[in-house]
Structures are given as C-alpha cells and as structure tokens.
C-alpha cells in the first residue's frame, strides 16, 4: 500500500519538463495584488495555451494557495483548460435554435471527420471541438465558429468543407 502512496508522489514528480519562466513572470506581475489567482491563471493560460500541471504547483507554492484550491477554480470555470488545445477551436453552437435546426448532426460530422467530440483535441493538436450553449447568431442557425470566424446555416457537407479548409492550412 505504501507503494501506492509512492506512486502518487511519482505521478507528481514525473511532470512534463516545462519552461517555467513565463509562469514565473506572470506570478511576479501579480504577486502583490489582492485576489491575484484569476489573473495569474489567465496569464499562464495565455502564455502556454493551457494550464500545465507544474504551473499549478508553482502558483500554489508562490502564492501560498493550496494546489487543491487552484484545481477547484480551474475546474469551475469553463475558460480554463488543463490539457493542450488545438490550434483551431471549433465551437459548435448547441443553443435552442441551432439544436432545432440539427446542431447534433453537425457535432456528429466533426466526430466523423476528426474523431473529436466535446472538449476533445486531435492528436496533432490542430483541432479542438467545443459544444457551446449559444453564440448569439440564432438567425444563422445552425452555426459553428472556428477561432474567430463564423460559419452560419451550416450543413454536414459544409462542415466537411470548412474542416478541409483548415486542415489544408498550416
């Protein structure tokens, strides 16, 4: 059983080698601010594209906040990501209007094409799919977004085309 405890320790020890300079800079910037956890985490996410585990332990140590508490914050807010994300984020609107107009099939089409469902990322880190509530473009339902570009009145066929377009891009 003690081996198990050691395993947990090793899990933590064996964290990926990540350059912590950027995370340290973010922490330096906010260290004296009251209520600095959110901006620190946002800053780290901006620098790394997601929140690597080592940076959580670093922030815990330097801000004197429990790692468990930081993890609680990270899992509470949808804005934080604990795994690396794709270069292109495909947001599939699942709001009422899109839902009625068949958003489910659009989601399925992405699964078919890229093999990724909600909150999943392709292995080559090119695409991440996200099912979101409403992106405020109900007039164009069903709608998807790829990063900042919006594609309205989309069909399964058109989804495939959009995916191909981004696949071809770097």
């Amino acid at each position, binding site marked *: 059983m003690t081996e*198990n*405890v050691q395993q947990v320790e090793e899990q*933590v020890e064996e964290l990926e080698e990540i350059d912590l300079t950027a995370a340290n800079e973010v922490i330096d910037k906010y260290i004296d601010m009251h209520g600095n956890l959110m901006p620190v985490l946002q800053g780290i996410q901006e620098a790394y594209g997601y929140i690597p585990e080592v940076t959580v332990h670093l922030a815990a140590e330097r801000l004197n906040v*429990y790692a*468990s*508490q930081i*993890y609680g914050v990270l899992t*509470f807010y949808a804005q934080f990501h604990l795994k690396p994300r794709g270069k292109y984020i495909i947001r599939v609107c699942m709001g009422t209007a899109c839902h009625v107009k068949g958003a489910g099939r659009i989601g399925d089409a992405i699964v078919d094409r890229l093999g990724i469902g909600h909150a999943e990322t392709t292995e080559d880190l090119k695409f991440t799919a996200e099912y979101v509530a409403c992106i405020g473009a109900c007039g164009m339902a069903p709608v998807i977004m790829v990063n900042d570009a919006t594609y309205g009145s989309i069909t399964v066929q058109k989804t495939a085309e959009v995916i191909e377009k981004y696949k071809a891009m770097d």
Partner: protein
Amino acid sequence: MVNLTIDGKQITTAKTSTIYEAAKENGIYIPVLCYAKKLLPYGACRICLVEVEQMKGRLIPSCTTPVTEGMVVTTLSDEIRKVRKTVLEFLLVNHVVDCPVCDKGGECDLQDLTYEYEVVTNRFEGEKFDLPTDEVNPLIERNMNRCVLCGKCVRVCDEVVGYGSYSFINRGFETKIATAFDRGLNCEFCGQCVSMCPVGAILPRPFKFKARPWQLKEVDSVCGYCGNGCTVTLGVKDNQVQTIRFNEDTGVNHGNLCVRGRFGYSYVNDSKRLTKPLIRKGGELKEASWDEAFATITEKFKTAGKDLGIISGARLTNEELLLLKRVSSAIGTQNLDHSGGECYKGLTEGLKETMGISASTGTFPQVEKCDAILAIRSDFYETHPVFGMVINQAIRLNDAQLAVIADKRGKLSKLPNARTLIHKPGCEINMINALCQVIIAEGLAQTAGLQGITELTKALADYTPEAVAGMVGADAEAIKKTARELANAQNAAIVVAYGLPYTAYSKEIAIAAANLALLTGIAGRDGSGLYLCGEKANSQGAVDLQIIPGPAGLGAQQVLSTAAEGKLPVLYLVGEDPLVSYPDQTLVKKALEKTFLVVQDLFMTDSAKYADIVLPAASFAEKEGTFTNAERRIQRLRAGIKSPGEAKTDFAIFQQLLDKLQKTAPTTPAAAFSELTAEVSGYTDIIYEQIGAQGQVWGGETLVPVKKVLVPVAGMEPLQADYQLLVGSALYHSGTVSTRSKGPMSVCPEPYIEFNRDDAATFGVTTGEMVQLKADGVAIQAKVKVDNRLPKGVLFAPYHFGELGLNKIYKGQSVIAVEPGKI
C-alpha cells in the same frame, strides 16, 4: 447578551451566537449536516432551516444566522418539515444507498435524518454517481458516491489542519470533493476529515468491516503519544482497540487528533506484546513466573542499594511515577531519571533559574487567542501536530502573526502570516538573544520587577540583529520586526519543544526564551505564555513529580556511562529503549551489557534483548491514572481493555515491588493521586474523581513566575562543515512505540535521510535510493527523501528507527558534521 424566543422558550445568549448555537445550548434540537462546532459557519446543507417571525415568508439557515434581540424562532413546523424532507430527497437522488455495507451505518447523519423525516419514497429521479473509490492510501478511504457536499472535510483540512488536501471541483451536478488533479489522497493522514464526515464518504480504512458503531464500547482516555494530551475515544470490541474516535463535544483540543493519535493504536493489540515475565537462564531469556521475577529483582535491587540506576520513560502515569519514586527511596537510590536526562533541563534548570517554575505558563486555548506567536526550533506540526493546529487557529481566527525561528522550513512556515527566520543549525540562542537585544535597545522592554537587566544588556551588546544575521545567515530586518511584534502584542506566545532528539543546549535555549518572555512581559501575563512542550504524553508529569536524580544521584547519561564502565551493578529501565532512542549507541550498548538489566516494557525492544529480566507492562489503553500535558492539564486515563496474558500495569508492578520491599503502597490510582497531591506543589486541592473531560490545569490558566531573573546566555558558533545533519522527530512517529503501529508504519515505514533538491542533485541521488552518511569514521545508511524544506547543505534524519542506528553518530549534539555519499 441577547434575549430571544426559540419554540416558545425564553433564551438569553451571547451576542455572537447563531440561532443554532443558542438552540443547542438550551437543549433545543435542530438537525444539521454541514455544521461543526470547530469550523466557521457555512450554510451549505439547508437542513437546519428555521422560521423567524421577524423574517416571515422565508426560511432561514439557523447555523449562519446570528441572534438578534427579540427574535422569535420556530424550529419545527409543517412547512419546515416539508422543506427539510425535500432537501433530503434531493440528497438521496444521487446518493448510493449502500447502507448495509457502509461502515457509517448506525451513526450516519444522512441515514438518521432520512429515518427521522420518513423519506420513504423520492419524488425525484436522477443518475446515481458511479465514481471509483479512492483507496490508494492505506489509512483513509474516500467513496465520493456517498458524499453530501457539506464541505466539512475541505474546511477542516484548511481551517484547522492547514494542509488543504481537498477542494470542491467542477460545477453543478458534477460538483465533487477532490484533491488537486483528482488523484488519490496523499497527505499527512491526520484523519480529521474522517472525524468530520457526516456520512460514509470518508472512512478509516484500518477499521473497515471491524465493527458496527453500536457494538463498540467507547472509552474516553488520553492519547499516549505526545505532550499535547488530546482526548482519544477508544472504540473497543472483543478486548481490542478497534479504532480511535474523536470527541468533539467535550474533548481536549476540540477533539482534534493527528495521524499518531488516530491511526497509531494497533501496537496495543499487537500479538508481539510481551505476555509473561522473562528471566535469563543459561544465556537465554525464558518465560518465568511473576513470583520468581519479583524475588530475583527484589534481591538484586536490595544488594545494589544506592547503586541501583533507574531510568523511566515519560509515558507512565503520574500515579505510576509516584510509586516508582517510592521504589527508588525504598531501595535508597538517588539515581532516578527519565527521558535521557538532558532534554527536560530547560524546565528543571532553565525556567527554574529564571522564573522559579518548571512548566509552561499558559494553556493551549490561550494560544488560540494570541496575536503574535514565536515558534522556536521544532516544527510543532511535526513534534506536536495538534499544537500546530492550535497555532493555525490563532492565525485563522485571530489573524495572529507567526514567526518561526528554525533551521529548516516546515508546515508552520506555510501558514498564512508566517515569517520563517532560517538560521544556521544550532544557533537558536543567537537568534533569541538578538530578539532580546532589539527589545532592550528600542526601549520596548517591560523592566518592572526584572532582575539582571544591566547584566543582560551588557551581555547582549554583541547580539545586534545585524551581527547575528551576519553570523547565522538570517535576516536582520525580520529579527527586528519579530521582536517588535512580540513586545507590542497584547497576547503573545513563545513556544519551544523538547524531547530526546532535541537534547543539546536545552537549558540554554530555555533560558534565552525565558529572557525574551520576561522582557516582553509574556511570562505570567494573562492570555500570553511561554510554552516548553515535552515530547511524551506525561513529560510534564515526570518533571512535576521530580523524576530526576537526587542531590547525590546520577542522571540518565551518567547512569549509562557508569554502567558502561562496569560500575553500576543493576539498571532498571521502565518503558525506555535507550539503545534506539538515546544518544551514543556504543556507550548505551556497553552499559546494557555490563549491568544486571531489568527492563519493563510492552515489547521485546532492542534494549530488552540485553536484559536479564523482562517484565511485561501495559499500554495506555489498559491503564487508569492521570497524565499531565504540556500545558499542565491533568487528565484521566481510562482503561478500555485488559492487558494481554500476564502483563501488568506499571502501577501493579510497582505496587508488588513495594510490597516485596515491605513498604505500603496506595491500592488504586485514585488513592495514589490523593497521596501525590500532598507531595507535588501545584497539585494540591485537585481531586481525582472531580477531574472532568477537560481535565484540570494545575497552577491556573496562567502560571505566574515566582521570580524574574534575566540570565545572560551565550550563543553558539555555527558549525563549519559542508554537510550538516539535523536529528529530529518525524510527523508520523513519536518515540519508538509508533514504529510498532501499523498506521504510522504504513505511511512512514522506514528511516530516511532528507536532502534538499540541490544537494540531492550534487550527489546524484533521488528519493528511494540508498545513501550513506559518515561521521567520525562511523557510517549509517538509509534511503533518500528529497524535499524542498531544508537549506542547502543541511540534512535531516528522524530518530525513531532502530535499524538506522542514527545514535551511532548522534551523541546529543545539536547538529552533526557528516559526509554524505551515494552507495
């Protein structure tokens, strides 16, 4: 005070009370799930909703609502009943109702409430959780399918323990309690979360499927490990201690316990316990009768007379120590001592010289209300874990400023408001002197009634913060800040721990601390105090009862060195294993070999193997009597089980010894206590039968110094060596007894040598690899543990493990120069 009406009853209560507390005080029942007396109000579960006439139209959580003048409260009505039932229905939507196999069954708040509110059917339907059980660690099992999200575990781990294992993660229906990154629990295993959990979500693993709660006989006693004296409730079934439970309502230290207190009980039931007296015949220890053993011992003791040496442990009760003293005077020897003889000298010599007393001046509840605390040397979270929690409470509830003078960082350093003043090993006195210097130089000293201020001022001239900082590598500004805080605080505490691994300069450190306590007025001021906390459960009792050498007697160290020279005919060891725990193993070994050795213990200890007679003794769980803890609190032990085989309590053994020596002895611990109140100053007027759940503090909450003499004491030269080893106590262990307990051993099973990351890298070692330490030509080996709390060049090793042979190189010094090397 505030007047209000609850259920038609007129109530007067404190302004700070909540409705729930006011009701509880007056015997009015309101159900709760998330409320706990020692935690801040939370209001998560909504079970305690009540009606308040002035706030008609909505229900109010009674656990978070403060009382106001003229409030009219109804705690139960049809409406309230309906709402509470609905809350329970919601909880039961996804709660797995696996009561038949749940260890909590029978004392589960959710089960009880479901029964009370007759939640037979549920109007709601939903998915049951199907989360894996966390059973990665050996002590605490977490089954989150049973969780009701009251958050008590999260809060106790933060507010009291200060470890922060848990947090709420995710949102909405998916909310659950988890550790960082939702891994298996890997913490200090104090089990505070176990005691808080109202349902079967967090359970003690060693107790799984051992007994239903109602089958347990509960016996309130005192923890047998350290000097905190926490109340433990023995859960007894089949003459075995099946578990240790906590007593939140009336227990000392709020029912808080640490890993040793809660999980370190299995040694009591161990099959390796000694059950019969053993006598060495033909070179081998053979089972014998008590009569034979007593006959030989009496004869040997009588022949030895004044040359008999007696070394006792500090886990005997006061009554047993009284009888031991009687034995020693019946024989006519003054060679009586305890706990290695050196470590307690801070009390018997240091405080005696400066303040004329030999005990801490305040109590733990007073520490909780302090606004400045100075911890010296030991990390209390390791040596006295529950005292660490007391300090944490002072910080959380009172925003106390904590300063730590230490040679390594520890958990205290991680608390909010903590300022750690790291210094070179062995130089605590220099640091304390610097604090005194600042207080005098800045005119902050309270000099009224102090003797020796001129001499001290002169002696401290060289201890300016700058000079000391330069010498021992601390920060001068931090020293000044700390000194000012201590001098200006309304209530302040200075806390020092002592014990077998901290024997060096114990007298000098105590004197330096006493100087500081006198200059700041901390000693003897109500609410403030100087605390010297002993390592063992009855360390303070042993000092109170003067288990120390008489004027012509030899102390423990001299007894051993005399024995090593072959000049001590008989040595009587009572509950001590010096071969493992005393400094200088070579000397101890020689001593044990050359003398006629009588050992009285629970186990065949390393020292007992050298014995000519071994007497089987009883553990704390088998004893009646009293312990005096580090805050002078006298508490009663109650026997939960019978001793195995023919083993006897130390009380019974001494009684019969006295009988054989034709001396009368008190027949019961109660009778012994009333005799000792006549002998021990401070204990007068305390009546055994009247010692209640909270014990009785001798000398009052604040012990006033008899005199106030400042005594200059010189600092130490830092040791010049590239690698320096600190010896100390590990969190999971206490003395050597805990190494015979499954709980502590399952999480800290073997000795280790702690390295900081840089040093580990220098030697190319990582956690788990073997390393060797050489000192004075002697080498010891152990596994490496890499951590980030030690300064560079400083190593640490715990002293509890016989197999490490740490005392081959530890000879009582504060720090040891070592040469580490990879094997």
